[in-house]
């Protein structure tokens, strides 16, 4: 419970049943907590710290790019900056921000005392922290990874990138993956089994639905990246040749399996925000969410289609016109459920009594801008250094149709 401040003053006196679990806010209590709200706060605070770090990296990138041939950082440092920035923002900032909301809000929304496995939940957080610290320890070691957050093989092989930067990167991603999958299973069990009596699936708040979809995405999308990272680890440490062209490797292997993770990851990052918008707009319009079941089905469909579009990150790699067309169409299909969500949000506001307080502009800006937000997400640049890819036929499509 967060209701006790440092002086021990209880902000609103809990009923006696809750008073028993009240713990004083000592450092030790934060280190040992298994309380979902506290873990949520830990995720939020830690994520924000990494967010500041990632922002600092972005600042250095922009300073370097402010004028041509700038000398703010060296070529090597620049490559390390965009690698660290990308990895940090995805795995150490946005995913933990989402985890903060899942942890703090989901048990409250479904009427559960906590998540199904509170200790496991704490373990997820501490593993996440360890992964984040390991990645950033590469900075202290003076050898940050510099192969891009997408880490395309075979540039990542020992031959082309001998230093330990890639090792820090791949090991910390594996550790972060363990944390995410543990948490995903925990929340799937929690949401499926611990809802209050009478809360059927279709009575569940939309945010909880989006959380559930995201947990399935995590549980299904992280295994492929785990596999390619294991291949990479074996190549780098034990002399296997998964990504050695001379031994017959096909470098599309990394790209396919990476993006089978990487594209669902886009929805792992964005669906919780869709869920939040779907809760905030009805509250501020004083109306129920318009067509709530359809908004839920749309989120489920987005998650489902999200597994069928990965090759739109590979349109320039020579898959041939049939594959390019198939993945273009699949990508366009995602625009339909996304569009439905936006129309339903507009209809939620329609006829409402809209309180235009400061809290409203963010989600309403969302309804207006999420076509572009989603499209940016769906054409997630695979190379931060050259984000605008205006020529790839298909990428311009994925960028504007979602």
């Amino acid at each position, binding site marked *: 419970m967060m209701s006790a401040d440092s002086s021990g003053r209880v902000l609103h006196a809990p009923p006696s049943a809750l008073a028993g679990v009240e713990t004083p806010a000592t450092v030790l209590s934060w280190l040992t907590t298994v309380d979902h709200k506290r873990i949520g706060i830990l995720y939020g605070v830690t994520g924000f710290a990494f967010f500041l770090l990632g922002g600092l990296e972005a600042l250095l990138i922009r300073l370097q790019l402010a004028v041509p041939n700038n000398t703010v950082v*060296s*070529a*090597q440092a620049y*490559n390390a900056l965009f690698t660290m920035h990308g990895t940090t923002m995805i795995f150490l900032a946005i995913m933990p921000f989402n985890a903060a909301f899942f942890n703090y809000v989901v048990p409250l929304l479904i009427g559960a005392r906590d998540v199904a496995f509170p200790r496991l939940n704490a373990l997820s957080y501490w593993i996440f922290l360890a992964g984040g610290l390991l990645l950033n320890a590469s900075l202290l070691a003076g050898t940050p990874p510099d192969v891009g957050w997408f880490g*395309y093989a*075979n*540039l990542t092989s020992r031959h082309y*990138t001998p230093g330990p930067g890639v090792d820090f990167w791949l090991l910390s991603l594996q550790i972060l993956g363990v944390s995410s999958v543990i948490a995903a299973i925990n929340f799937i069990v929690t949401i499926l089994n611990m809802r209050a009596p009478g809360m059927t699936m279709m009575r569940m708040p939309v945010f909880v639905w989006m959380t559930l979809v995201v947990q399935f995405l995590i549980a299904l999308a992280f295994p492929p990246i785990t596999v390619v990272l294991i291949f990479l680890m074996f190549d780098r440490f034990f002399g296997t040749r998964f990504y050695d*062209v001379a031994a*017959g*490797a096909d*470098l*599309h292997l990394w790209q396919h399996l990476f993006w089978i993770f990487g594209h669902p990851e886009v929805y792992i990052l964005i669906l919780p925000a869709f869920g939040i918008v779907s809760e905030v707009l009805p509250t501020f*319009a004083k*109306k*129920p969410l*318009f*067509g*709530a*079941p*359809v908004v839920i089905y749309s989120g489920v469909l987005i998650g489902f289609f999200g597994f069928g579009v990965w090759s739109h990150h590979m349109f*320039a790699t*020579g898959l041939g*016109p049939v594959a390019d*067309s198939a993945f*273009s169409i699949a990508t*366009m*299909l995602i*625009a*339909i459920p996304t*569009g*439905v969500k936006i*129309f339903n949000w*507009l*209809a939620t*506001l*329609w*006829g409402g*009594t*809209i*309180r*235009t307080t400061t809290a*409203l502009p963010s989600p*309403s800006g969302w*309804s*207006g801008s999420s*076509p*572009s937000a989603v499209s940016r997400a769906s054409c997630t640049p695979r*190379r931060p*250094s050259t984000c605008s890819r*205006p*020529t*790839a*036929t*298909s990428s*311009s*499509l994925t*960028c*504007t*149709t979602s």
Partner: protein
Amino acid sequence: MSTLAARSDYAREILHVYGIVTWVAIGIALVVGVALAWIIVRFRDRPGASRVPAQTRGHTLLEISWTIAPALVLLAIAIPTIQVIFRTQAAPPRDALEITVYGHQWWWEFRYPALQVVTANELHVPAGRPVALTLQGPDVIHSFWVPRLGGKRDVIPGRLNRLTFTAETPGEYRGQCAEFCGVSHANMGMRVIVDAPDAFARWVAAQKTELAEPAGLAAEGKAIFAGRACVGCHTIRGVSSGALGPDLTTFGSRHTLAAGLLPISVDNVAAWLKNPPALKPDAKMPALGLTDEQARAVATYLIGLK
């Protein structure tokens, strides 16, 4: 480098789809944005008149219609998209000029098998004739990208990728490696020089002309080149046959040095020869320990190769 100034059939195809999609997207953004703004103003909570609005929960017909509407818009986009995907990836015509492109860390090699010409970093193609590129690479993944002439196509070791386009207008077009490929990725530029057909024929002939024996400072430069490690990596027809670095046989006919890094001049070439990694981080060519005089002699020799 602007894709909006297309100068080939391929680039125009992409621009065509880009135009359709952009205008449709602008239309949708305007409709949604204006509707949102209007709704927020129209239905804002006015002071004193706070009311509980009608608790509408949905409207099946409306929801079906705004599921179908985006599907129709997408159909309108999907048809030209798929047409363009197939047209731009069609098999090259028989009369196409075949060129093999090798992406190296961090420079481009261009080979014209039928013409027996080899050059680097500056690709000459004739206007009005289809050019069929075969892309391959010996090291890591690169991506061939000349925005005004066509789409990106990756250069992937172990695979053969194809890119076919017909350049329209003579001129010089900049290109850039578009797949992150290591420390000097940003310095892996190229130029495509589109020549009128007769100018292209002259360029090909010039590439194959026997070189005159250099004299004076250039002769000193040649002696230094021939007596040093240079010959291990670079080919100059009749002098050396190294294969790791760019072919320098007609180095003097190019305009830029080190994959578009610097314009060719005695000063720039001499500075490069003295310490390449200082100009291009991690460049594979090492500092050769030449004195200023030696570097200027070799530079004079190389610039005379045309």
